[in-house]
């Protein structure tokens, strides 16, 4: 059987107009794309799971494109990103780690060779499990204004033999970011950190 069987794709968008305090004067957008896949390794221990990592490259790219589209379609508008995985109970935490390479490289490529490591979380969970996906600036992990996270999940999934893979993108800093630190305009080393 094929290693990739997508059962469901969910796109979530948030538009944040206000926080506490004065009106910010702009809208912060955050989008997540979640794919529910059959876990070909559920229910048994499989030593070599690397073939699926390779097979995930195409769906990863498709999900990254959907995420950019959900934010309005302009890759240049994307300022922050993150990724994550929820493994159904028939699987193993390590199956979630299959997402690091295909999920990360798909986003970095589409966003103009973004420099920063893509932050991530993963867990084993039941149907409806929620995941907090960390977010950082796409070119410099230490940009303080863009540290954030988005809570995501798919009602009813993952079932025991499923995996949920997640990509998240945002259009900017937290509303009323005011705790200083490195600003996007000060990125100078271009090592992915500063």
């Amino acid at each position, binding site marked *: 059987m094929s290693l990739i069987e997508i059962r469901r794709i969910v796109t979530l968008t948030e538009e944040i107009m206000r*926080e*506490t*305090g*004065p009106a910010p004067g702009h809208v912060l957008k955050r989008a997540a794309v979640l794919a529910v896949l059959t876990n070909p390794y559920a229910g*048994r*221990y499989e*030593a070599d*799971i*690397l073939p699926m*990592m390779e097979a995930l490259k195409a769906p990863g790219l498709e999900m990254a494109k959907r995420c950019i589209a959900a934010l309005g379609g302009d890759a240049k508008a994307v300022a922050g990103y993150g990724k*994550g995985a929820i493994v159904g109970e028939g699987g*193993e*935490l*390590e199956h979630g*780690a*299959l997402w*690091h*390479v295909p999920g990360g490289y798909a986003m970095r490529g589409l966003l103009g060779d973004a420099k920063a*490591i893509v*932050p*991530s*979380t*993963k*867990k084993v969970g039941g149907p409806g499990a*929620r*995941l*907090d*996906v*960390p977010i950082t600036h796409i070119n410099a*992990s*230490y940009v*303080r204004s863009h*540290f*954030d*996270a988005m*809570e995501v999940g798919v009602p009813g999934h993952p079932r025991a033999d499923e995996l949920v893979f997640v990509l998240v993108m945002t259009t900017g800093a*937290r*509303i*009323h*970011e*005011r*705790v*200083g*630190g490195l600003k996007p305009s000060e990125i100078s080393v271009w*090592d*992915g*950190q500063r």
Partner: protein
Amino acid sequence: MKASIRKITVQVEETRVEMGEVVSPPTRCAVACAVIANPFAGRYAEDLTDLTEIGVELGDLLTRRCLEALGIRPEQAESFGKAAIVGDGGEREHAAAILHPRMGAPVRAALIRGPALIPSAKKMGGIGTAIDVPLGHKDAAFVRSHFDAVEARVSDAPRSGEIVVAIAITDSGRPLARLGGLQKHEIKGEDGLR
């Protein structure tokens, strides 16, 4: 101490078997949470320095609690992460003020070293809200076997005027990690990345 701490919780996860395979030695992860009063609950404050100073105190305190719970020396720690849940009387930026400006230095001091970015997550939440604390290797962010997360939750917090602050420390990577990438014995440990 500047922080008004209502309670501290410490949890240790020890994974011995995964998918029927024995994990040897078991992987271990500690999460320490402090429930603190939010000095800015219910109002908009421009200057969040008080929270930043609380972040310094908690960085030291919670890291030490994790090391104690694991029963390890600082140099035996391998990965770390941090997170905050802000009760509904506060603001997302309050989490940022604790986590980002100055918390890293005392965490790294308690671990003796740790040049990598400390991965983080934040959210608003009611009583019993859980947060996924992202984990990464403390000496090199690209070590693939140590990308992980652990869920933190305090059953009776955060109340509206409280913040839950969590730090997670491990002495190991994922159980049965087998996806290649940078290995921990290959760490150069100079730039925080590799």
